[in-house]
């Protein structure tokens, strides 16, 4: 086992492995302390960062963090590495890579071409020696465009997943939140429900309902019910209309096993979705959710720090050309990300790593009530991610998810980002909003219509 060391301030710091070096170099967060992996002092952390900055990128191809023989995610990372794409930076070390990414030579075209040459571990490493402004600046240069029934990821645009959850999956209750969200101009990324019950009959009913609404109102968007991939495959077998195929994923084989999945099963789900041919503009149809701490919470982290584990999940995601990927950053709780500061940094790290690896990366900007965080912290992260070019965020009524019991961005929050940063929804959805008289965005500033569109006025009358 090779070892790493760095001498600074009259002290020599030693690190047993690349895995340990990465963990010690990671900016402080509760999950790494819980796992017993974090640096023991602030000085040791910076010494590890200095040591890491001098590690050649080629080293990451030779020293696997989790053995190749033991873990199919490691095998995927090594086997799918594109040497030709890696060539322009193959002579660099981690610190050089940071400088290269910040420089003029790193632009939309060169970063896009580089993605298959980067491994998650390289990207995680460079994130650890970056400040927030570095993570934002580089991510802003990356464009990842995906298509199903509309186009996500274009410059100057940010999508919203309308998340109309209801504690008992009541159809009218879900419809009420959908109505609210659509009339606040949200829902281009998807209409995506977290079901309260996992019964297949109820999942199928929700899928039919969303399909019916998209067709009735001719909304250029896509539907998703966030159920286990095996249930979604079964729904397809029963002839139920399904747009996006969802699954939670993580960065180790063992953590994925705790979710009841592996790469083979994801491939089956992907192919089942493709077989329906429901995307009118493109065939990106996988929707993945991730989040730092998931491998540790499954006791499946192999001594790898949580930010690096998270980046490894993106290697799993990119194998299936997803429509969207969502890091659900503050959902997991304070034992992994303790406060607003840790949540904000993690959200920006994940967005940066995902984008650099070639993913259409979005973020569920969120927190639970036992975390040291509040709406001000979410406003910070939303604004920073808006500047960084985040592909999409969540949109729910009044920030309060009454099914999952956490707080995420609201319909109003999305409009705040549109107001202040001039960000527009997907072009096809923007045209629909304009045609319906729901929202226009002259000079970048959103303006909501003064009266209800006739179709929605009629629906409201039905409800009364």
């Amino acid at each position, binding site marked *: 086992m090779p070892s790493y060391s760095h001498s600074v301030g009259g002290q020599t710091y030693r690190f047993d492995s690349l895995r340990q070096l990465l963990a010690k170099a990671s900016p402080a967060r*509760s999950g790494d*302390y*819980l796992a017993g992996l974090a640096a023991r002092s602030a000085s040791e952390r910076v010494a590890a960062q200095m040591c890491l900055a001098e590690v050649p990128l080629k080293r990451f191809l030779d020293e696997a963090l989790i053995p190749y023989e033991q873990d199919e995610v490691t095998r995927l990372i090594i086997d799918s590495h594109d040497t030709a794409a890696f060539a322009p930076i193959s002579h660099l070390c981690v610190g050089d890579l940071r400088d290269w990414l910040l420089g003029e030579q790193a632009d939309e075209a060169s970063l896009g071409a580089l993605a298959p040459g980067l491994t998650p571990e390289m990207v995680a490493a460079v994130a650890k020696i970056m400040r927030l402004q570095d993570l934002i600046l580089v991510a802003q240069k990356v464009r990842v465009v995906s298509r199903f029934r509309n186009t996500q990821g274009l410059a100057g645009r940010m999508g919203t997943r309308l998340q*109309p*959850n*209801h*504690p*008992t999956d*009541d*159809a*009218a*209750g*879900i*419809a*009420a*939140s*959908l*109505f*609210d969200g659509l*009339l606040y101009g949200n829902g281009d990324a998807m209409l995506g429900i977290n079901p309260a019950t996992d019964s297949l009959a109820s999942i199928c009913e929700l899928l039919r*309902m969303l399909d*019916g*609404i998209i067709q*009735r*109102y001719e909304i250029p968007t896509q539907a998703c019910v966030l159920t286990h991939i095996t249930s979604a495959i079964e729904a397809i077998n029963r002839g139920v209309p399904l747009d996006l195929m969802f699954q939670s994923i993580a960065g180790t084989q063992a953590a994925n096993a705790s979710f009841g999945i592996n790469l083979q099963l994801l491939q089956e789900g992907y192919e089942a979705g493709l077989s329906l041919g429901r995307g009118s503009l493109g065939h990106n149809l996988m929707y993945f959710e991730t989040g730092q701490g998931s491998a540790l919470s499954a006791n499946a982290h192999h001594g790898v720090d949580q930010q690096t584990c998270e980046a490894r999940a993106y290697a799993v995601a990119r194998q299936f050309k997803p429509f969207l990927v969502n890091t659900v950053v503050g959902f997991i709780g*304070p*034992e992994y990300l*303790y406060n607003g500061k840790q949540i904000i940094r993690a959200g920006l790290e994940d967005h940066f790593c995902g984008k650099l690896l070639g993913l259409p990366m979005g973020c569920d900007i969120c927190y*639970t*009530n*036992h975390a040291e965080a*509040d*709406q001000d912290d979410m406003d910070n992260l939303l604004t920073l991610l808006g500047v960084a070019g985040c592909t999409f965020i969540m949109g*729910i*009524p*009044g*920030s*309060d998810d*009454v099914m999952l*019991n956490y*707080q995420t961005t*609201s319909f*109003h929050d999305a*409009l*705040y980002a*549109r*107001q202040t940063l001039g960000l527009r929804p997907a072009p096809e959805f923007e045209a629909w909003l304009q045609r319906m008289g729901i929202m226009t965005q002259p000079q970048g500033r*959103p303006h*909501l219509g003064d009266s*209800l569109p006739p179709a929605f006025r009629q*629906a*409201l009358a*039905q*409800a*009364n």
Partner: protein
Amino acid sequence: MHQPHTLACTREDAWQPLRRLTPARIALGRAGTSLPTRAQLDFQLAHAQARDAVHLPFAAAELAERLPGPSLLLHSAAVDRDTYLQRPDLGRCLSQQCAERLDQHRANNPEGYDLALVVADGLSALAVERHALPMLQRIEQLADAEGWRLAPTCLVTQGRVAVADEVAERLGARMVVILLGERPGLSSPDSLGLYFTYAPRVGLTDASRNCISNIRLEGLSYAMASHRLLYLMREAWRRQLSGVQLKDEAQVPHLSGTSRVANFLLD
């Protein structure tokens, strides 16, 4: 043309009648495209109540005084709230001192117990303050009627669900029920959770437990929760197991949570 002052600054949404269909915060109106002051402050209050519930200290000694039977005041290995929130592993085991106290108790009571009741603050001492006593009274009545021998009620400060396994193992109890405060939601700062385990011992996972959650005035009633718990305990006693193999099939009146309004967007 003179508009009333209140209408000048904010716009109401025409679909306010839909609010009866969901507890979600819909039709909040807008100031420009932002949240109006009223809705903004309503949210802040709900969050403040949830935060207060998380950080309210567990008044274990006061609860012990109100209990009819004997009790033991215990503490987990998490020394304070900040440690508790960041180190779930410490909240799952007893402090060294408390572990020794229970071992001493066992030495004096070597015959053990049929059922141990544990109360922990969990993530909401408010839930425990409001709902633990009435639930304990009901469960003790049920245990008496079944003829089960009850251990002293154990009140654990900074405790998580799995601490019940250690308590029960040290006391020599065949079954354990732990009541604890659930993670507060914005509209439910005082929701009590209940976990039941047959043959509890250190190292079990949730797969060995049965959970009854959302016990509060606006959620599951004490009577309903006790009814379901009794069913689980009787079945567990008979089949000598708990958890995923023991489904909650208690015959309970079906709760109609649905609004009885069809999906107005499609009909």
